[in-house]
């Protein structure tokens, strides 16, 4: 059995803010094997994007990471920028959330894809142009040949996101990180783009880390998922299992809060009471304590350790027996 492609151990990130140091990530650990898909779900502010940025080595200047990120056996934290540059784009590709601003408005599409190709694969200008065309056709951008010389403002949001995907895959990376790739797109496009990503990931045999706040996106597309809250992974396990058991109170509340078709008219949308705490204000102990309906005093004493719920499936909660006993 191969060593895992990505091994994150106890990743912590502290941000220096005006109000003092704030813990953005408080000890995140997970593994990803070649060709596997992993989902990261949580509300905004839970640390999922910071995790992605930490993997890419693109954290903001005021961020201090600690712990370990091993990619294909190589430790990434503390690696100098030149070495990271060789990995970025070539071995790890990333798709971002905002297609409208992800491309340089002054450069043509062809040039922006070509940049990656010329940098890592050392293609000549002519070769990279041909390859860029092939990539655009692969991501199913209509009228690809003409689009090579177009500028981003001439493309729609969905088309720009296809270009971003093409750029991310241009050098055939081993790992694709997709940070909310469809959040900024119309619902009708979301499915198409996610399907496209799935297809390409499978074809190339890449590992994928898919980040979203949408449970529906996770349900169909990733083998395993991590539920994040307050900078911690509160539940992790195979997707089907997580959905089946809804072990952690937050997972359960998240599931209950999603809008569904077919409910009787006049049903109120369920919400989770309270709001996500500011990073600098996260209390010790379980980060979800203030909003949890199963909370007891012990919850606030210390961060609950992961408790196994099933094979390769655990949740950080000391009240699991009570939670699991209740109907969903």
């Amino acid at each position, binding site marked *: 059995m191969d060593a895992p492609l990505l091994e994150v151990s106890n990743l912590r990130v502290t941000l220096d803010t005006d109000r003092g140091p704030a813990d953005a990530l408080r000890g995140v650990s997970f593994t990803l094997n070649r060709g596997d898909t992993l989902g990261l779900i949580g509300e905004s502010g839970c640390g999922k994007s910071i995790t992605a940025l930490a993997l890419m080595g693109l954290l903001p200047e005021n961020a201090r990471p600690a712990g370990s990120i091993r990619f294909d056996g190589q430790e990434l934290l503390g690696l100098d*920028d030149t070495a990271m540059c060789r990995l970025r784009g070539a071995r790890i590709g990333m798709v*971002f959330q905002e297609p409208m601003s992800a491309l340089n408005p*002054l*450069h043509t599409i062809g040039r922006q894809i070509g940049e990656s190709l010329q940098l*890592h694969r050392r293609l000549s200008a002519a070769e990279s142009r041909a390859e860029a065309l092939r990539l655009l056709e692969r991501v199913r951008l209509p009228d690809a040949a003409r689009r090579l010389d177009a500028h981003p403002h001439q493309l729609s949001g969905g088309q720009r996101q296809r270009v971003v995907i093409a750029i991310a895959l241009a050098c055939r990376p081993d790992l694709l990180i997709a940070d909310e790739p469809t959040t900024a797109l119309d619902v009708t496009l979301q499915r198409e783009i996610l399907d496209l990503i799935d297809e390409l990931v499978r074809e190339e045999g890449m590992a994928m880390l898919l980040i979203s706040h949408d449970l529906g996106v996770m349900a169909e597309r990733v083998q395993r998922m991590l539920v994040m809250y307050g900078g911690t992974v509160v539940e992790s396990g195979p997707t089907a299992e997580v959905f089946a058991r809804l072990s952690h109170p937050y997972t359960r509340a998240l599931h209950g809060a999603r809008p569904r078709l077919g409910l009787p008219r006049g049903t109120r949308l369920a919400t989770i009471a309270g709001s996500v705490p500011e990073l600098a204000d996260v209390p010790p102990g379980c980060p979800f304590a203030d909003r949890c309906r199963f909370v007891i005093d012990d919850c606030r004493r210390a961060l609950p350790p992961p408790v196994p719920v099933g094979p390769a499936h655990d949740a950080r909660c000391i009240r699991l027996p009570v939670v699991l006993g209740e109907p969903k």
Partner: protein
Amino acid sequence: MGRFLSKRITTFVATLAVASIVVFVVLELLPGNAAEVMLGPTATPEQVAALQRTLGLDRPPAQRYLDWIGGLLQGRTAVSVSYGSPVSELIAERLQVSLPLAVMAMVLTTVIALALGVYAAAHHHRAGDLGVMVLSQAGLAVPSFWLAILLILLFAVKLQWVSAGGFPGWYDGAWPAVKALLLPALALAAVQAAILARVTRSAVLEVSREDYVRTARAKGLSRRAVLWGHVLRNAMIPVLTIMGLQFANLITGAIIVENVFVLPGIGRLVFQAIANRDLVVVRDVVLLLAATVVLVNFVVDVLYALIDPRLSARDA
């Protein structure tokens, strides 16, 4: 692009026309009797009448205006009352000083400002950034003519590397002439660079925060590659606009600096013309300077459109 250009050109020509009308109205019509103003209170009525006839001031205003503009378009200018030669000759002579001065100042400004601005942005939140900001505050607060005087004090009086003013002309070799223009260009450039450095710094900082810079880094481009390939070109857009707007300041500064260093340029010409009450010279030179500002703004507009494909698309 074609439609964009034609629109811009019409605006350019219209602005020039309006500028010329304003200059004409202010300098020929407002004073009432221009000949009287030019000759001063000691003139006799006969002298005034004679001058009026020579300058054609007894004709109706509209005709005078058209004659003036018509003459300019054909390259003809009136004869200066105080110098006795056509204004065009005077201007051509003085341009030999003012043009090189302006070019040197622009080059110095651009080099200093871009270097300092990028340096400050790269050292944001650290000592380098603070240093540049303090320096630029000083540059903004110091009057250009005072800086010029201080430079003269240091380099001419104390160190005696250059003379305290004057211009030797281009005929004895280029170097003495350039040497005479160095301090003036520096005095001009320092103040302009202070403004431009701040603009460059904030433009670079803002662009660095854009999403597409993050995409470029995610592709594996080094910081330097991202700076040159993505940040600088995009940051140049606001910087270029400000540079264009600053041209008017450059002209103002040049007028002042030429007087500080006693350089025989356009600035000194207009100044002496005022002292001599030579409205003919003032009129033509002021129009020339205003026209130059309008021209530069026009060029900047066009350059802007060439650099940013979004603009020409919008007007097309």
